[in-house]
C-alpha cells in the first residue's frame, strides 16, 4: 500500500530537509512499520524529547536512605514518626498553594488521539493505549479544573479515517464515560494526521476568535497515511496557521518532521515522551493556559487574549491589558418541548435563553447568534472565584495556646473531637514544620479551630472557611 505516496512535500525548501530525514531513516524505529515513512524518520531518536532536564536521569539521582529520616519514639514505636511524616507532607502541600495562578478566559481544545495499530505496542506497560487512556482521563478532569470556561472535544484517528469521538463540550463526565469504554476505542490501521487536523479545524471554525483554539495531538505512529488529492498536509498546516489554531503534539515513538513543523508554525509545543513520567509531564504542561504570568502590576492573572494577540508566543513579557467584557447569564430551559434554536435552526429540547434578546442557544459558553452577547453560565465564572477569595492559611495551636485560652473540644468543620491536651507530653509538643502537636489549626479571622483533615480539605478543595462563612 502506498501509504506515503501522497505525502508530497509542498515547497522545494522542504525537500532538502526531507532528504535528511530519509538519510536517518535506516535506523530501526520502534514500530514495525517504520521503514519508509517519509517524514516518520528519526524514530529511534528518542532522547530528543524536550522540556525535561536532560542532564540527570532517574538512576543518577542521589541515593537517599529513607530509613534515616524515621526515628523511633520513646516506646520504640514508629507509629508517631510515620504519622508526623504523613502530616508534614500534607501540610507542605497545603502551604504551597498561595502562589499566583494564571487563568484563561475561554479555551477550546480538540484532543486528537492516534488509535493506529502502533498504540498496541508494549513499550509502555501494559500497552501505549492503556497508558494513554488512563492519563487522558485524569488529564481531562485536571484540565477542566483549571480551565473553567474551556471545552474539549476528542477526535480519533484509525484506519486512515478520523472520527469525532466526543463533540466539543464542557462536560468532563461525558468525556470520561466515553474514554472509559475501551471497546469503542480499539486501535487499528494507520492514522491520518491530515484528516484529523481538517476535522479539528472544521469543528472549531464556528468558534469566536476571542477564545483560544487549541489542538493536542497524541501521536503514536511514525507515519501518516493521508488522502490523495490537491490538499496536502502542508496546505492544511497553512490553514491552521491562518486560523490561529495552536497545535501541541506529543509523539510516543519518536520525533517526526511534519509534527514538529506543525507545532512550531502554529505556536504550539512538540515533545517526544521518553517514558511514562515524561509523557505525563508533557501532557500536564499543556493544562495551564498558554500564557505566562508576568509583571508585578498584575497580581495574580494574565490575560490570555493579549498573549494570543501577540502571535501565540508564550510569555511575551507584556503587562496584561484588561478589558471589561459584557456577559450575559442565560436561563436554562427545562427539557420540555422542542423549540427552534437560534444557532443551528434545529428543533431541540432544552437549551439556554440569551438574557438580552431571548433567543434560544444550544449550549453555553458561546456568543449569541442574534445579538452577539457573550453568553456564559455563571457557575463557569464562579469556578475561579476561589482565586480571588483564598482562605488564609490556618495557624498552628501549641499546647500552651490550647491550655491558656478556652477553646472548643471539637473541630469546627467536621465536629470530630480533638485529642485531649493533657495526654500530650511536653517532649513532643513543639511546633515543628507547621504540624500542630495538638492537632488543632486556628483560623486567624474567625478564631475557629479545625483538625488537620479539615484544614487540608478547606484549603485544597472547599476554599471557604466554615467559620468565616457564618
Amino acid at each position: 500500500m502506498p501509504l506515503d505516496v501522497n505525502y508530497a512535500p509542498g515547497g522545494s525548501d522542504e525537500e532538502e530537509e526531507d532528504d535528511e530525514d530519509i538519510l536517518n531513516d535506516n535506523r530501526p524505529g520502534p514500530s514495525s512499520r517504520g521503514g519508509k515513512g517519509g517524514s516518520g524518520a528519526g524514530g529511534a531518536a528518542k532522547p530528543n524529547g524536550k522540556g525535561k532536564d536532560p542532564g540527570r536521569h532517574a538512576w543518577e539521582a542521589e541515593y537517599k536512605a529513607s530509613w534515616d529520616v524515621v526515628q523511633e519514639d520513646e516506646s520504640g514505636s514508629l507509629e508517631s514518626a510515620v504519622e508526623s511524616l504523613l502530616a508534614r507532607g500534607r501540610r507542605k502541600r497545603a502551604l504551597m498553594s498561595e502562589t499566583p495562578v494564571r487563568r484563561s478566559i475561554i479555551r477550546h481544545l480538540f484532543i486528537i488521539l492516534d488509535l493506529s495499530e502502533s498504540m498496541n505496542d508494549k513499550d509502555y506497560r501494559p500497552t501505549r493505549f492503556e497508558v494513554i487512556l488512563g492519563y487522558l482521563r485524569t488529564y481531562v478532569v485536571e484540565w477542566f479544573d483549571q480551565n473553567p470556561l474551556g471545552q474539549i472535544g476528542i477526535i480519533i484517528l484509525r484506519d486512515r479515517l478520523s472520527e469525532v469521538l466526543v463533540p466539543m463540550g464542557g462536560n468532563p463526565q461525558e468525556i470520561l464515560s466515553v474514554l472509559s469504554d475501551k471497546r469503542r476505542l480499539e486501535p487499528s490501521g494507520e492514522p491520518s494526521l491530515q484528516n484529523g487536523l481538517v476535522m479539528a479545524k472544521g469543528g472549531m471554525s464556528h468558534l469566536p476568535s476571542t477564545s483560544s483554539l487549541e489542538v493536542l495531538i497524541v501521536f503514536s505512529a511514525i507515519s501518516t497515511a493521508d488522502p490523495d488529492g490537491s490538499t496536502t498536509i502542508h496546505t492544511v498546516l497553512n490553514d491552521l496557521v491562518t486560523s490561529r489554531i495552536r497545535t501541541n503534539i506529543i509523539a510516543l515513538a519518536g520525533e517526526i518532521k511534519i509534527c514538529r513543523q506543525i507545532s512550531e508554525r502554529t505556536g504550539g509545543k512538540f515533545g517526544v515522551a521518553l517514558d511514562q513520567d515524561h509523557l505525563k509531564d508533557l501532557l500536564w504542561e499543556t493544562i495551564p493556559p498558554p500564557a505566562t504570568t508576568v509583571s508585578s502590576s498584575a497580581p495574580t492573572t494574565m490575560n490570555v487574549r493579549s498573549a494570543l494577540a501577540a502571535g501565540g508566543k508564550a510569555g511575551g513579557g507584556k503587562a496584561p491589558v484588561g478589558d471589561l467584557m459584557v456577559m450575559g447569564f442565560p436561563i436554562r430551559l427545562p427539557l420540555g418541548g422542542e423549540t427552534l434554536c437560534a444557532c443551528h435552526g434545529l428543533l431541540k429540547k432544552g437549551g439556554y435563553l440569551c438574557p438580552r434578546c431571548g433567543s434560544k442557544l444550544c449550549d453555553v459558553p458561546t456568543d449569541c447568534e442574534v445579538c452577539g452577547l457573550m453568553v456564559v453560565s455563571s457557575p463557569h465564572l464562579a469556578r475561579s472565584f476561589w482565586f480571588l477569595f483564598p482562605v488564609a492559611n490556618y495557624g498552628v495551636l501549641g499546647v500552651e495556646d490550647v491550655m491558656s485560652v478556652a477553646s472548643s473540644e471539637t473541630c469546627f468543620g467536621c465536629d470530630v473531637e480533638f485529642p485531649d491536651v493533657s495526654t500530650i507530653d511536653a517532649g513532643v509538643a513543639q511546633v515543628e514544620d507547621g504540624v500542630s502537636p495538638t492537632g488543632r489549626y486556628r483560623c486567624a479571622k474567625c478564631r475557629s479551630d479545625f483538625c488537620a483533615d479539615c484544614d487540608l480539605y478547606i484549603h485544597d478543595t472547599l476554599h471557604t472557611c466554615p467559620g468565616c462563612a457564618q
Partner: protein
Amino acid sequence: MTTAQPTAAEAVYPTTTPPSVLLVIVDIHPLSWSLLASPPPAPPFPVNHAIDLAGASPMTLPDFVTILMVFLNAHLASRWGNEVVVYGATAGRAKLLYPPPPSAVAGPSKPRPNSYRPFQLLDSRIEEGLREMISEEEDRLQSGDTAKLNEPSAMVSALTKALCFINRIVPPSNNTSDITNPNEPLAPGGSGPDRPETRILVINATPGAHVSASSDGQTNGDADGNASAQPTQGNQQRGGYVGLMNCVFAAQKAKVPIDVLSLPPPTIDASPPIFLQQAAHLTEGVYWQWNGRGGLLQYLHAVYLPPASLRHRPFAVPPQDAVGFRAACFCHHKTLDIGFVCSVCLSIFCEPRPVCLMCKTRFPIKSLPTLKTLAANIQSIPIPDTVPPPIIPKGVTPNGPNSVDGTRKGRGAGKTGGGGGGGRGEPIEID
C-alpha cells in the same frame, strides 16, 4: 441535568446499593418560620386557576420537625447501615444537631420498650438540639444582639460543615493515587460496595427575595476598601454567593448531590432561591419548591428518600424547572442577567468601572462610555413561556406557571439592578 435515558446496559436494576449517609441542613431561622406559620393570603387574582385556587396552609416548625423525624426514621429504616446527620442553620450560625458529640452521649433517659432505639435516639437528640439552638437564639434576642438576628441563615457555613464531615467519613478517592496510577479505572460515582453514598438535603425556609440585612452601604465601602487591600486577606464577608459556589464545586468533586427543598410556597416567595437552585442543578440534586398545601411528608418520601443511585432507575425525579444561571455582582451583591466581567480575574460587576475592584486592572478608558450607554440600555426581554406549562393535576409537579412567573419577576429586578439603580432586592446572598 442528565435525565438518564436507560440504555440497554443500564436497564438492569442495581441489585444492591451501598449504605447511604443523609446530611440534612434545616433552616430554622425564626423570621422565616414566623412567615411560614402565618402565610399571607393567596393573591386575589390567581395566575392559573388550576393550581392557585387554594391558599397556602400554615406550617409551624414543630409540625415540620415531626414530619422531618418521620422522614429521617424512614431513611434509617430503609437500609441497614444508613446514617443521618442533621445540621441546624439559623441567623448567621450553623450547628451540628445530630449525632451528638461522643462525649455527650447519655442516651434518652429511659428507653421506651416499644420503639426502635435508633429512632428514639435520633428523635430525642434532634428535639433537644433544636431546643438548645432556639433558646440560644432567645438569649441573643434578650441580650439585644438584634443585628445578627436579621442575617439570613448560615447556609454556607452549614454546607461547608457538611462537606467537611463527608470528607472525613468518605475520604476522597485520592487524587494523588489517581494521577500516579492512571491505569486505575476512574469509577464514576466512586462507589464500591462498602463505600457509603452521601447526599446533602438542604431544607430552605428563607424566602429567596429576602433582603440581607448586611447593609449595602457597608458592603459597598468594603468593596472599595478591598481594592486597596491585599486580595489574599480572604474576604469572605461578601461571599454568600462565592461561598455557596465553592461548596457546590467541592460537592461536585466529591460527587455529592445537594438536594434542595424550598419551603416558602409561591405565595410568600415568588422568586425561587436561584443560587440554591443552581446548586441542586450543578450537583445533579433535586430542587423542589413546596406549593404550600400540605403533603410534605409524602413529597419528602417520594422525592428525597431514594438515594442517588436509585433516583432515575427505578424511581423518578420530578421534572426540574428552568434554572436561571444568574450571578451576583461583587460590588453590590445584585443578581444580574447581564454583567460586566473583568477579563483578567473574571470578577463580575453590575456597572462599568474604569478599574477592576479585585485585581486593579485598568480597563481601556475609551470603551467606558460605550459600555455605560450599553448598561443604560440593558432591558431584559421578558422570557416567553417557551415551554408551555403542562396540564397537570393539582399540586403534583413543582414546576409550572409559578416558577415561570417567579422567573419573570426576578428578571425585572435584575434589569433595574443592571441599570445601576438601587432596585428591589433579589436574593442577594444566601448564607
